[in-house]
């Protein structure tokens, strides 16, 4: 609804040029003063517990060309249970090197305030496994997690390909838990590199495809793969010219600790020069 309302208010929108990842971040930041409004959903029906649909609304704003801020609001709807708000996150991404290099680092800092019912799976760290998803909403909402998440994002653009790697560390300050680690990596490419002269909705240049791999790396006490969940998934993105970007991916669990199949879906609108539109609704500056 928020996306639809903003779309009505701001008819001139553009599609984002971000790679088609759900978990992995690249070094592509939001353009200054652009606001991207996203709905990010995932769905799964685990074998031994209730199915769920998790929804996250994301507001991503280009504070500077080298600094992007993002707010996440998440909720979950669990079969035979209830639908609840699960928490929020505030994220900042900084680009310390102001020129393009072979490998471009981005520093990511996020504060998370959510409960244990959260199933957004925006990242996987530590020993996050399918057993965490068996908790009921009533039990889960009673357990608060206030976490600091740090990421080192490394990303390259090479001959139309994007290659990105993220190293994730996370610390829950509500419990005496060790630092948890995780990773995400992705490779993607537009289906066609050359833009066509005519306006077209279904041209290959408007589609991008890739593969994403992510999972936990345990904690400071037992760093490694043991007892972690791991996922891989192809991903496809459709940039509708002067319209929204639509993205989907089936993620496959790679071990018994993972969900067997997790569907991910995202729709996003990028509103160019957001504050400028508010300050000068009839054009001008």
């Amino acid at each position, binding site marked *: 609804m928020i996306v639809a309302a903003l779309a009505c208010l701001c008819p*001139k929108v*553009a*599609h984002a*040029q*971000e*790679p088609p990842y759900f978990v992995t971040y*690249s070094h*592509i*930041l939001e*353009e*200054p*003063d652009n606001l991207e409004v996203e709905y990010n959903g995932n769905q799964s029906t685990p074998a031994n517990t209730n199915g769920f649909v998790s929804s996250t609304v994301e507001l991503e704003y*280009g504070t*500077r*060309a*080298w600094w992007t801020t993002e707010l996440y609001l998440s909720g979950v709807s669990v079969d035979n249970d209830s639908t609840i708000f699960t928490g929020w996150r505030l994220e900042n991404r900084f*680009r*310390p090197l*102001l*020129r*393009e290099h072979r490998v471009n680092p981005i520093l990511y800092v996020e504060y998370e305030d959510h409960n244990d019912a959260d199933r957004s799976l925006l990242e996987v760290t530590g020993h996050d496994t399918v057993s965490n998803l068996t908790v009921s909403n009533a039990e889960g909402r009673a357990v608060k997690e206030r976490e600091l998440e740090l990421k080192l994002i490394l990303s390259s*653009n090479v*001959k*139309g390909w*994007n290659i990105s790697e993220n190293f994730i560390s996370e610390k829950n300050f509500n419990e005496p838990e060790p630092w948890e680690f995780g990773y995400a990596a992705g490779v993607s490419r*537009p289906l066609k*590199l*050359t*833009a*066509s*002269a005519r*306006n077209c909705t279904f041209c290959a240049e408007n589609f991008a495809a890739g593969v994403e791999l992510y999972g936990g790396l345990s904690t400071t006490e037992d760093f490694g793969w043991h007892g972690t969940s791991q996922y891989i998934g192809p991903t496809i993105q459709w940039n509708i*010219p*002067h319209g929204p970007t639509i993205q989907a991916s089936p993620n496959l669990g790679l071990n018994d600790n993972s969900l067997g199949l997790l569907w991910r879906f995202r729709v996003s609108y990028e509103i*160019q*020069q957001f504050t*400028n539109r508010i300050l000068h609704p009839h054009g*001008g*500056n």
Partner: protein
Amino acid sequence: MRPALRLLLLTLIFTAAALPSHAQSKDHWKHDVSATDRARTNPLAGQLAAAEAGAKLYSEHCSRCHGDDANGRGKKPTLRGTDVTSAIDGELFWILKNGELIHSMPAWSQLPEVQRWQLITYLRSLQVPAAPTTSAPPQ
């Protein structure tokens, strides 16, 4: 002082020192272009189809800041000025790839190379004076 704290302090000082040096280069970005980048030439130069595709890309990515007619908007510069007209292809390619992040010009490295050349072909087409129109009525 603890080593971690010292490292953090050094990082902050380094960052603070680095930012003004970028700020000073506002009108001198061309000095940052390497000889290799400067030597690049536009493989699509003068091609009408490339200019038309570039116009479409311009409308999607650039017009909101630089204006529909590329004459600039507010503090965002014109792309018909001497900064662009005097720049050679390799320099324009470089600024599209790297941007001027400290001055709000984003990097467009995520656009495939060929699309950046299409944009440059379009920008060059803006510099070609329109053909004179004849006032004589057809015979």
